[in-house]
Every structure is written in C-alpha cells, then in structure tokens.
C-alpha cells in the first residue's frame, strides 16, 4: 500500500503542536510559525475576496462611483494612513464608525433580552414546590444583583445581602463552568478521535512515550542538581 504522505505530514504537525506539553521547544516553535503564517494567508485571501465583492466590483466593474461604497472605501483606506507619521490619526475615523455600529447593535438587544425578559418573574400562586422555586429564583436574582452595587459600602444589611448574592453567583458560575467545560472536553475528545484510530494512534503513542521520557529525564536532571 502506498503511503499517503499527507497523513504523515498531518500527524507530524499534530505531534509538533502537542510537544509544548513537554516544554517549549524547537518543534513547537515551527508549528507556531506555520499556524500563524497559514492563518494569515487565509485571512488575507478571505478578506480580499470580501473586498472584491463589496468594493472592487461595485466601484470599478459596475462603475458606480457615486455611491456610499466610495465613502467606506475612503474610510477603509484611512487605516493605511497610519503608515505615515503625519496622517496616523486618520485611522481613528473608521474605528469610531465601526465601534458606533457595534455598540448600537449590542445596546439595542440589551433592554429587551437582558432586562425586560429577565425581570419577568413567575407566579407564586400555584403553591408547593413551584412557588418555592419561583421565590428562590427571585431571591437569588435580587441578592445576586445587589453584589453589583458599587457606590454604597457593602456593610450592614446590604453587606449581608450581597455576600449571600455572591454565593448565588458562585453556584451559577460553577454550574456553567462544569457543564460548559465538559462540553469543551467532549469537543476535544471528538477531535482526538482520528488520533485514537489507526494510523493516528501510533502518533499519539509516540507522543505519550516522549512525554513520559521527558518527565523522567527531567527528574533525573533535577536529581543531579539536587
């Protein structure tokens, strides 16, 4: 069977990237340089494609010179004005416009999604466990919020409430971290699947062996120093 050099190269790259687990080394530095270089060219290719579609085609090919696109193009080219000392400040204009759009997009969603929908509490009328749960949600929300009061010293009643609130927040953080981290681990497990089947498993085995040898070697060295 002919050896697929593509797979060999892929697996070698994986090992190089993982070699950091042992320590910073020659191979990882190469992998780092390659990753940045390749991603950079990918960014540039994708970016040029977008600019071609949004700027070059309407302005040059279709010849629509007098259009809002021209303003964007000029503003966009202001970034390059940074390369000269006297025009450096021009780059602030596109940034301001962009930040304005982005902030407005963020703010317009905030009031409904993060305030009105969340302050809508449920009824206590049902009694029993449902009512208890709804009261607990209300108490946790109010106390949790009180932790974010900044212009009053957290002493006395506010101090007590806000310290309870911090515990309420911690429960949420722990829960979210526990479930979310695990979802990340499942993701990484899924990616490692190819490395756990033939031929990837050979690469992983080599990786683990190198790691173990590295650890033992380090220990030996540490011993001689001690």
């Amino acid at each position, binding site marked *: 069977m002919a050896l697929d050099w593509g797979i060999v190269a892929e697996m070698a790259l994986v090992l190089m990237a993982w070699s950091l687990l042992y320590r*910073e080394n020659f191979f990882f530095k190469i992998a780092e340089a390659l990753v940045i270089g390749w991603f950079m060219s990918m960014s540039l290719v994708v970016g040029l494609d977008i600019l071609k579609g949004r700027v070059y085609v309407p302005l040059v090919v279709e010849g629509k010179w007098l259009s809002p696109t021209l303003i964007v193009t000029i503003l966009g080219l202001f970034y390059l004005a940074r390369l000269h000392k006297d025009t450096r400040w021009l780059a602030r204009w596109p940034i301001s416009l962009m*930040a304005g759009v982005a902030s407005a997009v963020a703010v317009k969603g905030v*009031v409904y999604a993060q305030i009105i929908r969340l302050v809508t509490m449920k009824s206590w009328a049902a009694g029993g466990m449902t009512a208890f749960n709804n009261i607990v949600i209300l108490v946790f929300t109010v106390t949790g*919020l*009180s932790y*974010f*009061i900044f212009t009053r010293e957290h002493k006395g009643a506010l101090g007590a409430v806000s310290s309870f609130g911090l515990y309420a927040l911690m429960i949420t953080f722990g829960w979210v971290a526990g479930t979310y981290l695990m979802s*990340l681990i499942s993701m990484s497990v899924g990616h490692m699947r190819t490395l756990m089947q033939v031929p990837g498993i050979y690469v992983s085995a080599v990786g683990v062996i190198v790691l173990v040898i590295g650890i033992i070697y380090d220990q030996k060295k540490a011993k001689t120093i001690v």
Partner: protein
Amino acid sequence: MILVGKKFELILFLIILGLIYYMIDRARRGIKTPKVRKLAALQALREVVGQAAEQHKPIHISTGIGGLHDEWAPMTIAAMAIFRKVAEYAGEFGVPLKYYCIRAHMIPAMEDLIQAGYTKGGRPEMYNSDMVEFVGDGQQRAYMAAVMGYISREKPAANIMLGAGFYETYIVLGSGAVAGCLQVAGTPRLYYQGTVVALSDYPVIGQELYAAAAAITENPPDLGSLAGQDYGIVICSILMIVTALLATVGATLWSQLLAW
C-alpha cells in the same frame, strides 16, 4: 410611529439612560461625587505591575477575540480603558507589555493606547512597535498557538486578560496558570465566569469590568455614572418584585405593557 410592542422597552431604555445621565451631570457639576466601593482587582493592578518590574519580566495583556466591530464592542472598550491605566503603570515602573492582536482594527487603537500610556507614565522611549503583534484576523487558533508559545517561552510575570473571551480564555489563563503568572482576568461573558474565578488571582466578575473601567479614571462624571447604574439595579429589583406580585394575583398588566 413607535413599533407595537416596543413602547415599554423604549420607556425603560430612556428611564435608565436618563438616570445615569442625571447622576453623571450631578457629579460633573460637583454637586455630589459618589464614593465607589474598592475593587480588589483594580487595587491590585499597580502592585502587579510593580512586581513585574522587580522580577524584570514582561506583562502579557489580552482582550480576547472580541473586537470593536461586533456586539462585544462594549466589553472591549471597557477592557481598553483599564489597559490604558496598565500601560501607564508599565511606563512608570519600566515594564514591557506584550499584546497579541487578533483583530486587525485593534492594531492602531492598541498601539496608540499603549504608547500614550508609556508617555503618561514617563518612559515614552520604552514603547516599541513590537509590543503589538498581529496574528491573523479573527483566527482564534493562530492566537492560541501564539499565546501558548509566548507564555511558556517568556514566562511573563503577570497575565492580564479582560474583555470578551471565547475558547482562548482557557488557553490564555490555563497556560498562565501552568507558567505560574500572577493573573488578573475578567469578562462579562457568562460561560467563562467560573474559569475566571478559578484561574485568576484577582477575578473581575461580570459587570465589575464595566464598573472598573469607569472607576479607574477617578473622573467625577465616570464615578457618577456608576451611581446611576446602581439606581438601575434598584429599578430592576423593584420590577422583579412587581412582576412576581402581578403574576401571583393574576393581573395581565405586565404582558399588556410588553405588548403595547
């Protein structure tokens, strides 16, 4: 004129902004500047930079993958406000900073910010353009590789990550923890709160990032805005109790308001 179902939203929006504006205005005119509760992370910043100076090691700063062009812009702006101060301290103590730039449009902003900070701190000559290094626009994996490599190579004294973080939060804070950096971290993004609390020496929880961005300037209007924000919290708390009571007695006022 106003869309159906948006009238109450608009009113609430204007009330909250109005309150914040009122408090800013009061502080600006010197009527009352509120006292802001001490935030551990803010207090520690100067000390963190000072320690880096003692160890003659650099500081790594990160704003995460969020940029100024997407809905995470407010978080990035808040983070930049704090980094402006960090750069000032760095200039004061003579500590080099390192920032990997994952969004191309952040290059000019961060370069200017760091340079202005060093100038203000008294060491303008320390700034050099290598401090801001670009690694690919929105290319999270390239960023992860660059930061992991940098932290395990240079072992910076401190690792400060503020702003909108995604997966790279684990990488930045995780490799910082393995390398034994002093860590200050904070993001308002829900998923990463636990990680931030677990891995950093001085965590900044949720909204504290915005508050810190305002408090760090020590400008009366900025401090005033925090008082306005606190009234916002009071309004929200009252609304919660009211909606709970309304739902309990079976009134439909709230849903009518929302549909208005």
